[in-house]
């Protein structure tokens, strides 16, 4: 009975600490308790852990953008909305989403910078125009465009821009992308005429070039600059990033991806702890095929990361990225030239 009472007190202390309402005496009492209570330590964590868990709520709230407009409440006093209004709302919502999605996919192919069209092969669509000869060699490939959204903002060097302007139809899709594809076609037949599903040989063709403009790209700051920043009293943050650059995450979809012709964009977030170990992978935008999402998460969990640093101190952080999968049906279409 007494223990139950004590446990209630500890819970209320922990709640006060999480909400930032605790006095120093409360904190001391809580510290003393968890020093002797392993269960509380594993289930609740220390003072900072409580505050961090609580901060999740604030993070989630600050990320919200839903802004419903009720209009005149009194006109619609029946329970709930009328079917017409519901339909209109659903229509508006769908339309808005569709517009947002279009925008999402339209960003990479925006033709504004002079050479962007030849630089990025329009997210897997034909850049080359008709390729009649190559169309006969029906080798299906699964192309993984690394982070299409970032690619749109890849800076174009002046020389590239000039050459692209001089030859607008030049066929050099030197895109910033990771392309993974099997060298053997999956539909090959065995000796007895039975289809054999061989494991594909994976090969990285092009390397992702990151841009300093992108929000998620790691900021490399030299130690001299770091000292300068330190002395200027500004806090210095390095976001979590995969070790070995952006190509370190290398999703390898299963054979069924070819059979299905699976295409889509998977956006994901990986939680990186202070040691650089990925602790959790969350799909924030599914590709529509579960195996694509799983392949991405599996690859993301396999990679090693450099942890987020605040003033040189490693803290748990978040790495956000996206992969776009496209199936190309012939040899040359949209296939980037190998960089190395």
């Amino acid at each position, binding site marked *: 009975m007494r223990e139950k009472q004590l446990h*209630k007190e500890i*819970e*209320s*202390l*922990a*709640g*006060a600490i*999480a*909400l930032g*309402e605790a006095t120093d005496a409360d904190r001391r009492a809580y510290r003393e308790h968890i020093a002797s209570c392993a269960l509380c330590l594993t*289930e*609740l*964590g220390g003072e900072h*852990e*409580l505050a961090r*868990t*609580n901060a*999740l*709520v*604030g*993070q*989630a*709230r600050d*990320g*919200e*953008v*839903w*802004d*419903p*407009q*009720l209009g*005149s*409440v*009194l006109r*619609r*006093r029946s*329970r*709930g*909305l009328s079917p017409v209004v*519901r339909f209109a*709302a659903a229509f508006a919502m769908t339309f808005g*989403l569709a517009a*947002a*999605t279009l925008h999402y996919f339209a960003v990479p192919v925006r033709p504004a910078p002079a050479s962007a069209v030849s630089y990025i092969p329009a997210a897997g669509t034909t850049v080359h125009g008709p390729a009649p000869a190559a169309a006969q060699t029906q080798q299906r490939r699964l192309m993984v465009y690394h982070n299409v959204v970032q690619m749109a903002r890849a800076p174009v060097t002046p020389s590239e821009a000039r050459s692209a302007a001089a030859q607008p139809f030049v066929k050099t899709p030197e895109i910033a992308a990771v392309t993974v594809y099997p060298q053997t076609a999956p539909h090959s037949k065995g000796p007895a005429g039975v289809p054999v599903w061989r494991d594909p040989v994976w090969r990285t063709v092009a390397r992702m070039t990151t841009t300093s403009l992108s929000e998620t790209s790691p900021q490399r700051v030299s130690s001299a600059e770091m000292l300068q920043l330190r002395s200027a009293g500004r806090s210095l943050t390095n976001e979590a990033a995969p070790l070995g650059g952006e190509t370190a995450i290398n999703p390898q979809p299963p054979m069924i991806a070819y059979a299905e012709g699976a295409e889509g964009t998977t956006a994901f*977030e990986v*939680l990186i702890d202070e040691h650089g170990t990925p*602790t*959790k*992978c*969350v*799909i*924030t*935008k599914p590709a529509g095929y579960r195996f694509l999402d799983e392949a991405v*998460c599996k690859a993301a969990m396999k990679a090693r990361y450099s942890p987020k640093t605040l003033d040189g101190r490693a803290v748990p952080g*978040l790495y956000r990225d996206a992969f776009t999968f496209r199936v190309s049906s012939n040899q040359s279409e949209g296939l980037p030239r190998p960089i190395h």
Partner: protein
Amino acid sequence: MEQVYLVTGMSAAQSRVDALVREHQTKLARYVRRMVGDADVALDITQDVFFSAYRTLQREPERPLTAGWLYKTATNTAISFLRRKKILRFVSLDREHDVRSLRIDERSSASIDLQTAMRRLPAEQAAAIMLTSYAGYSSQEAAAILGTSADAIRQRVCRALRTMRAVMMEPV
């Protein structure tokens, strides 16, 4: 003042409710959406809250209606909705269900984790953590809204945090 109402064709209660709607609709609707985990239901409940504010003002024109009153009514409606829907809530335990209530641009890991945790919490704990951490009330104010003691609120917050931590830790 009376002339103003005559010109606009609105009663005092109507104009006060309109002001309340303009000021609080977004926050309140998002709060209810987190509580019930469904955007459509959240809109319905928010409508109901403002309509009952209107009826209250018609009955007692002098009554000051604060944000606290709105949150109290919304919380009670949401809790009774959750109790009615209890069986439904525990049928599907996968995360895809939680994602559906959120807009596509709101699906960060923190957001999904919170929604998953909210669905697993008992209604009282959900209300406690939402009023304090989410809506920003202190535990005393939340206690006044829910009609309990501040200690009980803190205790519920602690239990809710325990569930949330478990959700954050578990692999997807």
